[in-house]
């Protein structure tokens, strides 16, 4: 994978939002002609969802676009490893929501992460059932479907999207597919990539230690985290050190890293 121009990399502010929320949604980042081609193809596609990446005439071109590659490079480096992919489909009038879960198995890496890109080739309004995510849940250690009895959580957010939108998610984020109340099938293509190198200094780090950017990490409290919000925040501050490649930058709550000599 060739290096992209610096202007295509994530900014420090965007990266801080990814670290805080566990995902970053880039609205309409893919041009219309690609979306039209992908949507038409997806409607006709009769292969297995796990084969779409290999059999599609357009999906790999989309992920080769410099503005898309720049984000991938910012998160998992220049030579990420392909893990798996799937063309997820929710049929028209399918009224059951999927259970809350996190993908794959519990990850034992303390800070490194895979990403999952969710690409919408068509407009996906709320009633069509775009994926539901819980912002800020990505650093919690749960086992895949162990949280399946949860139904609603304060601050949960549907990835309501226009055609050409890609949401880049940390592998650990809690999420689920949603009911489709419309008469049209909903498609989302998911691509999981693992890092090909240490995830340090991969984005445009300019301003990574500015007050504005550090405040994104410091202000990452979510209502659903309740009294655990401070503990959660400390984990984000650790991840921020890792992705910035600076193990002394302190974005922790009340600067506990400095206070405790962490």
């Amino acid at each position, binding site marked *: 994978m060739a290096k992209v121009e610096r202007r295509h990399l994530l900014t420090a502010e965007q990266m801080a939002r990814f670290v805080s929320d566990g995902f970053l949604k880039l609205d309409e980042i893919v041009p219309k002609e690609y979306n039209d081609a992908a949507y038409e193809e997806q409607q006709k596609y009769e292969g297995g969802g796990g084969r779409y990446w290999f059999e599609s005439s357009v999906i790999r071109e989309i992920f080769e676009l410099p503005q898309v590659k720049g984000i991938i490079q910012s998160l998992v480096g220049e030579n990420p490893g392909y893990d798996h992919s799937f063309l997820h489909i929710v049929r028209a009038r399918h009224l059951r929501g999927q259970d809350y879960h996190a993908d794959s198995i519990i990850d034992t890496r303390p800070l490194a992460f895979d990403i999952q890109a969710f690409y919408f080739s068509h407009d996906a309004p709320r009633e069509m059932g775009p994926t539901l995510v819980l912002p800020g849940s990505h*650093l919690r250690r*749960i086992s895949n479907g162990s949280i399946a009895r*949860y*139904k*609603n959580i304060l601050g949960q957010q549907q990835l309501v999207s226009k055609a050409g939108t890609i949401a880049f998610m940390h592998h650990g984020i809690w999420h689920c597919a949603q009911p489709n109340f419309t008469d049209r099938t909903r498609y989302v293509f998911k691509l999981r990539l693992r890092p090909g190198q240490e995830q340090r200094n991969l984005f445009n780090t300019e301003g990574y230690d500015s007050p504005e950017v550090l405040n994104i990490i410091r202000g990452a409290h979510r209502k*659903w985290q309740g009294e655990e919000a401070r503990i959660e925040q400390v984990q984000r501050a650790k991840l921020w050190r890792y992705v910035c490649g600076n193990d002394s930058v302190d974005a922790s709550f009340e600067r506990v890293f400095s206070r405790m000599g962490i």
Partner: protein
Amino acid sequence: MSETRQQILILHLANSNLESPAVAWALYDGTKGENELQMQTGDSDEPPYASVLAAMRDGWNVIQLPPLPQYPPGQEHLTGNLLYEYVLERKVAVNG
């Protein structure tokens, strides 16, 4: 004599005080048939009760209080499931 069915309401609170705000909720309704939809993921943005205490005032019985968390050395900053999980039930008449 009327038959009853159980409804289970799971409320997750912000902390261990039963009056603290509800942050997550799930309802499993034994009065509904196999083909009827239960509460679905993402189908509501506000909890049915502000707290466990508010649900108790409306007739729900608490059948589980979560133990308080412990923080073993080295794991003080790890998080996982939602901690403050209260299970409530009520019996609802289904005929008679």
